[in-house]
């Protein structure tokens, strides 16, 4: 597979477009889905990371003009996105919901998008967009016969047909196999490199890590962290960890572990040990040496707070 053979159309506007959020909140009755978020997105790829239910989709819908902010404003190059269809000349959206006109072929579908955009040469634009997502081979088959990943690519092609300055994607990698994922990442990367403003949401750390340098982390409706991915990643790995350990001799193991600098505290309970660790890497390297040296067999080692929610909530406190 040659992923570099098709290049996005060269950028005429060197500055690119900016999507700005100023104090944006959205609530449903008493439930606050998005809480006072401000950010400014410029050219390049940005990841919107957060656990499920953090409000990522709500935020994306407000960015794309499909939801009115309860408070605050979303603007694309100064123009509001809500009740303003004109923004779609510069904005493309790939929603999470796998909604496609299954009775159309991919070519018809993308061509219809090009026509709805009133592009001067819709056939050429459709051909180019389909080539961009490498769907030429299947373009005359009905979308109903496609796999999930292919449908996703058809949707991306439709969203890219007018060569938008800003592309928003909601969980674009869901349901894709590794090869498709790699291809999509490469495509987004190239678009970002060509000066497009790309924002994609994800609840998977690794996806964001591989694709974007800049990341916005959302937890429970709030913007928890924002900036360079490596800094945030370091915060995440260096945070205190808690492990539940069961072994052949919990008390002896507790004594041995207390001598370790990486261990911050040990609690001996009915169900085994609860160990608080200050240095994740050092502890996980030390444990396999300590236990056998004392003739203790570790039966169970369970990280207690590895859920994404706890990782993220740590970031909120940090």
């Amino acid at each position: 597979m040659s992923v570099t053979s098709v290049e996005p159309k060269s950028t005429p506007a060197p500055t690119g477009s900016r999507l700005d959020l100023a104090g944006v909140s959205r609530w449903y009755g008493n439930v606050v889905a998005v809480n006072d978020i401000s950010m400014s997105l410029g050219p390049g790829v940005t990841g919107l990371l957060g656990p499920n239910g953090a409000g990522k989709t709500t935020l994306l819908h407000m960015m794309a003009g499909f939801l009115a902010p309860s408070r605050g404003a979303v603007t694309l190059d100064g123009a509001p996105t809500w009740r303003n269809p004109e923004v779609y000349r510069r904005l493309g959206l790939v929603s999470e919901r796998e909604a496609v006109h299954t009775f159309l072929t991919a070519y018809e579908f993308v061509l219809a998008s090009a026509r709805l955009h009133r592009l001067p040469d819709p056939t050429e634009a459709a051909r180019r967009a389909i080539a961009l997502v490498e769907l030429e081979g299947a373009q005359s088959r009905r979308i109903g016969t496609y796999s999930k990943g292919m449908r996703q690519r058809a949707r991306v092609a439709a969203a890219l047909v007018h060569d938008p300055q800003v592309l928003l994607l909601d969980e674009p990698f869901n349901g894709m196999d590794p090869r498709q994922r790699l291809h999509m990442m490469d495509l987004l990367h190239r678009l970002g490199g060509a000066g497009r403003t790309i924002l994609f949401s994800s609840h998977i750390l690794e996806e964001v890590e591989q694709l974007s340098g800049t990341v916005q982390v959302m937890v429970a409706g709030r913007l928890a962290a924002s900036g360079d991915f490596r800094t945030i990643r370091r915060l995440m790995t260096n945070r205190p960890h808690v492990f539940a350990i069961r072994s052949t001799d919990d008390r002896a193991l507790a004594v041995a572990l207390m001598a370790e600098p990486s261990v911050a505290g040990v609690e001996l309970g009915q169900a085994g040990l609860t160990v608080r660790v200050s240095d994740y890497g050092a502890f996980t390297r030390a444990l396999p040496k300590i236990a056998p040296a004392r003739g203790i067999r570790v039966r169970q080692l369970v990280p207690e707070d590895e859920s994404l929610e706890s990782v993220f909530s740590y970031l909120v406190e940090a």
Partner: protein
Amino acid sequence: MSTVSWITARGLLGRRRFLLLFPLPVLLVLLAVLSRVLGVDPSEWGPSVLVGLGLAVVLPVIALIVGTGVLGAEIDDGTVVHILTKPLPRWQIVLPKLAVAAGVTAVTVAVPLYVAGVLASSVRVGLALAAAASIGALAYCALFLALSLVTRRPVLLGLVYVLIWEGLLGNFVSGTKVLSIQQYVIALADRFAPTELLATDVSVPVAAVMSTLIAVGFTALAVDRLRSFSVAGETS
């Protein structure tokens, strides 16, 4: 044909739901043919078949299926986002969809009504029924299309309007007839071809003005609602 109407027509005619449109018109024609073959006097079967079935059931039900389908089906399955993420003024989405809905409804209903009208009385009555039903199709479709943007349950609400308001209340509370598309259609058909078979209390001017108001008003409402269309707020 605009791209919006092209997609709408393909979506409407390409779904299995389209088959729902055929039984009622077929039933209408069958009953008319049967009555005619058996030699029943038209004054006995005419009102019940032409009005009771044709105008009171076939027309609104077909309009309900089609009118809530042209936009409602796309809202339900989420494909509406594809049309909405285009720099089109929203009336350029609503009007083509309304045109397709009214057109499909008019053809589906006018043809059997014409046949039944001819069998019951004359070609003139048949044509009058077909013409009045086409006007009714436009008014009903505008109403149901707007409903599909105002509520998540347009079919249910539409049925309540057709069955309870027009069907039931119209018989007991004569005042409700002034707000009944069915009565406008009867009045207009009776005006195009005066016949004993059609009877209503609503005057022709009221029928004409109200039909126009409903068609224009609900279309304007639909355009405005689509302008503020919000994607359902569930986060996943």
